[in-house]
Structure formats: C-alpha cells, structure tokens
C-alpha cells in the first residue's frame, strides 16, 4: 500500500549513458528518454512536497529545464536521480516561498483532471477513497502552507520520501543539526495546526482508533 519514494525502484541511468550525452547535445530522443526515466520520480517528489497545485506541470517542467541547462556541469559523482531530486527539491522550495505571497490567489481544491481514476468509476469504494484522499492531501498541504518552506520540506522529505537526515541535509544544503531542528519545529507546528483543525483532528483520532499501528 505504502508508496514512499524509496520503496519504489527508481530506474537509473549510468553517468556515462549515451542518453546523457545526447541530452547535452540537445537530441530530442535523449531528452525524451531522460524524462521518461525520471519523470515519475520528479513528479513524486514535487507532488509530495508541494501538494495539489495548478502549477504542478510547470514545476516538473522547470525541474527538467534546469537539469538540461546544467547537465554540462554534472560530473557524475552522484546518481542522476539524486542530482535531479536536488533540483526538484529546490524548485519546490522556490515555489513554496513564492506561494506564501500568492496564497490568496488560489484557495480551491485543485482538480486532478489528469488522473480520471478509472477504477473509481466502477468501484464506489475506490471513488470514496480517492475523494477522501484528495481532500486529506489538500487539507494537510493547506496546513503545511503555514509552516515555513524549509521546515515543511525537511519534514516531508523525511516522512513522505523516506530520506535520511543526512540526505535531507545534503539536498537542502544545510547542516544535519539545522535539518533536525527544522524537522522538530515542523513537527511541533503541524501538531498545533492539526489540533486547531476540528475536521483533521477528528480524522486523526478516527484513524488512530481504526488502525492503532497506523500505516499501510
């Protein structure tokens, strides 16, 4: 059930893969291959950090545009996926920072017209879960919007992306102490926010009652 990043096998290109050389040369088929290989991973990272947003597509595109623009400096000292994840995290961070300013522009529950959830059309249970899940995601991310982007990203990378503190520190260009501190404050603020939200509080209590050990 659980689909954290590390549980999913991320396909990996070798650093000397012809695809990367092709991308540097601007060859369309290589660019397409890069996107096909890492698109899912990038979408996952952006989606989990930012939540439902009409800018999702733009953010994913920005990540790849930045990657292509900087591929010349990629020396292959890390996996391509790690390097791309770093770009995605930074793109998400910039977006969240700007989002604080633009918070009044869009308050809606963002519809996901790209995922028509065909099973939901035939299985009412799936439909309910999809809608509830979307609503939960929407509400939780709305709460997270009130936490500073750095703290939020640190917490979500830890919980949702299964990253270690060391990895998060590297991705966010911070010390491990700072990262732990950000996670601590994010945790505290999130608790406080959930406590203040009647619907989420009830949901959390219900969840606890239903599955004492929690997660899938």
């Amino acid at each position, binding site marked *: 059930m659980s*689909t*954290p990043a590390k549980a999913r096998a991320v396909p990996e290109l070798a650093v000397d893969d012809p695809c990367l050389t092709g991308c540097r040369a*601007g060859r369309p088929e290589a*660019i397409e291959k890069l*996107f096909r290989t890492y*698109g*899912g991973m990038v*979408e*996952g990272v952006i*989606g989990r950090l930012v939540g439902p947003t009409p800018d*999702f*597509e733009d953010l994913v*595109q920005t990540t790849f*545009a*930045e990657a*292509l623009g*900087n*591929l010349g*400096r990629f020396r*292959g000292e890390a*996996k391509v996926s*790690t*390097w791309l994840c*770093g*770009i995605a995290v*930074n793109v998400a961070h*910039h*977006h969240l920072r*700007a989002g604080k300013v633009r918070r*009044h522009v869009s*308050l809606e529950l963002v*519809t*996901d*017209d*790209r*995922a028509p959830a065909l099973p939901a*059309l035939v299985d009412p249970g799936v*439909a*309910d879960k999809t*809608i509830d*899940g979307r609503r*939960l995601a929407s509400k*939780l991310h*709305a709460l997270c*919007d*009130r936490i500073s982007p750095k703290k939020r990203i640190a917490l979500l990378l*830890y*919980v*949702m992306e*299964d990253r270690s503190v060391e990895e998060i520190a590297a*991705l966010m*260009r911070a010390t491990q102490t700072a990262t732990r501190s950000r*996670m601590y404050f994010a*945790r505290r603020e999130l608790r406080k926010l*959930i406590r203040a939200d*009647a619907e989420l509080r009830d949901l*959390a209590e219900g*969840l*606890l009652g239903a599955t004492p050990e929690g*997660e899938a």
Partner: protein
Amino acid sequence: MSSCGRIERQLLDVVRGTASDAVRLEVEAHLEDCASCREARASFGLLGALRGQAPPRLGAPAERRIVERLVATGVPRARRALAPRRPGRVVFVGLTVAALGALVVTRAPRGWRRTPAASPVAEGQTTEGQTIEATQAGVIAFEGAGVMYGRGTSLTFHAATRTIAMAHGEVDVDVTEHRARHFRVTTPKFIVDVLGTHFVVTPAGVRTLRGRVRVLDLEGRELAVVSAGEAWTSPPPASPPPLAPAATPSLTPPTPVPPSTVPAPRPPASRAAAVHSSVDVDALVARARAALAEGDAARASSLIDSARAAGPAPSERPVVDLLGADALLVARRPSDAIAAYRAVLRRYPDAPEAETASFAVGQLLFERGAQIEATAALNDYVARYPHGQFVREARERLAQIRPAE
C-alpha cells in the same frame, strides 16, 4: 518530558515504518500512559495516511507537452540556478538568480518556446514602430527588457517611449531597472507601468512575478499596484448597475446548520453516476473560475448554475457556492455577494471555504463603510481562525476601523 520528546521523534520512524521492533514496543508502551503522545501519534498518523496514497502524477498528455517543450527549448545556456553544482553533496548556488530562473521557466505560458532562434524576430532587431504579428511564440530584447510573447500576439515597439503596445495575445516582460525611464506595456483597456520588474500581461490583466507594477487606465489614472505574486484582472467592460444604498444587513454570527439540514449523501446506488457528476462539476468549476479570471461574471454564473445542476458531491458544494459568491462580487453586486458568502459560512462552517467566506464578508462590509458590522465580522473571523490565512489583513482592517470609531 524528555522522554516524550524522544518518543515524538521516534513516532515519525514508526509512521515511516523504519522503527525497529524495540523502538516500536517502547513507543507503544509509552503511548499507553501518555495522552499527549497519543495525540501526536494521531496527528502523525495523518501523514502516514497521506504517505499511503499514490503521489500525484501528470497524465500522458501533460507529459507529452512537457517533452515537446523541452525538445523545442533544446539545452538552454547553463544557469547557475537550481541545479546542484557538486553531485552527491548537493550544493546550490546563486539562489537569487535561481528564483528568477525558476519564475521565468515556471511562469512561461504553455506553448512558449524559449529559444531566440524560434522567434520570428531575432534579438536586438526592433526598430521604432515595428509591429510583430506573432505566428509563433518567441523572444525579443527591447530597451533592456527580455520580452517573450505567445503565438497570436500582436505587439508594436516604441523605443522612444520605452513602450510596447499589445493589441492582443500575451506577453511576459522582464525589465531591467532604469531609474530615469519607466517601461510601459499598453493594452486596449489599461496600461502597465514599471521601473524594473518581471510581469505577464494579457488583455484581461497583469500578473507580477517580481517587483511591483502600476496599472493605469487609458487616461493615466492609477487603477492598482500589483506586487510580486499578485494578479490584477481588468474589470468587465459592461458598466455595472449602480450600487444599492448601503444596506445594513444584520450580522448574525454564523451558526452551524443542524445535521438534519445538511444535504444527505447520495445513496450507494448512484455512486458511479455521482463520480461522473463529480468530474463534470470539476470541469465546470474550472471553466467558471477561468471565466471569473477574465472578468466574465455572466458566463461564470451560468457555469456555476450548471455545476449546481450537475449535482456536486458534498465536498464540492462549498467550492461551488463560494465561486457563486465570487461571481456576484465580480458582477459588482456586493450586497448579494455578502449574502452569498454568509450562506457559505452558514451551510459549511467547517469547510475550508468557510474561512474565505468569513473574511470576505468582513472585507466587503469594511469596503462599504459599514464599520460596526465589519468590525463584528472581522472579529468573528479572527476568533474562528486565529491562524487563518487572512488574519493579518483582518487585523489591519480592524486597526483601520478603530481610530475612526
């Protein structure tokens, strides 16, 4: 207490499923006696539930669009922006430049190509009075500004006045500051005036990505100042009906409707149809929102009516009703809008939309000069949403009212 701190930290590992058996047992034992940690466990359990969901994915069409745009763009000049310089130990440099780069790429309207080679006019070739009827998107340098335009855009460049006249289309302008000379983009309805900033202009309005812009009417009177992250939409062309004399609607505190009046969920037999309706409602709401963004209140109202007729799910009703209230506002019917926002507040007191509605009531009353009711409404908002998104604005309005009282 320190034990609680440690347990709380370990709770995240339990949620992640990475806690060892020993840690899990210790946490469980602690939770038996500690209500506070149980509550923390419940809160983090929500993250666990979220974690169990598949992450959002783009559909095939969106992915195809991205690939097409990336291919059309080619490999841009390396920017010291968002990419880590030293892989492994990810190091980001030039955050300011990165923010700029991110905004430029993020905000570029769909279908724009970013390569100068793709533009019909090469950089630096504008002449006084030159007009571009763009058959495809492109980029041009003009008077210290980078100008990206979409397909179908009509622009005329006036270097002497540092002005771009846009007849139609969409243009993204990144202006280098020049203290002595303003930069202007004129449209048939309004003028955007800036020193140095980055903004996107359409015939319907302007969106500022960096700095601030002033929006003027065609006579040069200031209509709005739009800061970074904000958008301004041109009012609809039809002259609005005169506002009704300031009515003084009684501001009753929103009271939750009794459960019996809450619309009942659809019976299971109609679930499949309900999902179809939901999709319709989503689409209608999106179209209504787009119509509102263009200032077309009539079309938005019609779409909202259709959305209501399509039978929105209980979770969608507050969205639809809030949008209906917004449409009334855009149609310059503030009294009706206030009533509609109050209805949202009354019907869905626990929905996220109630917060917006609550603040909107206070704000509209404030704008109409109904100070007593505005004070009550804004105080009510602050009391209900002490950490709400508009708390700062609400407190500012209250502070503005108080001196006058």
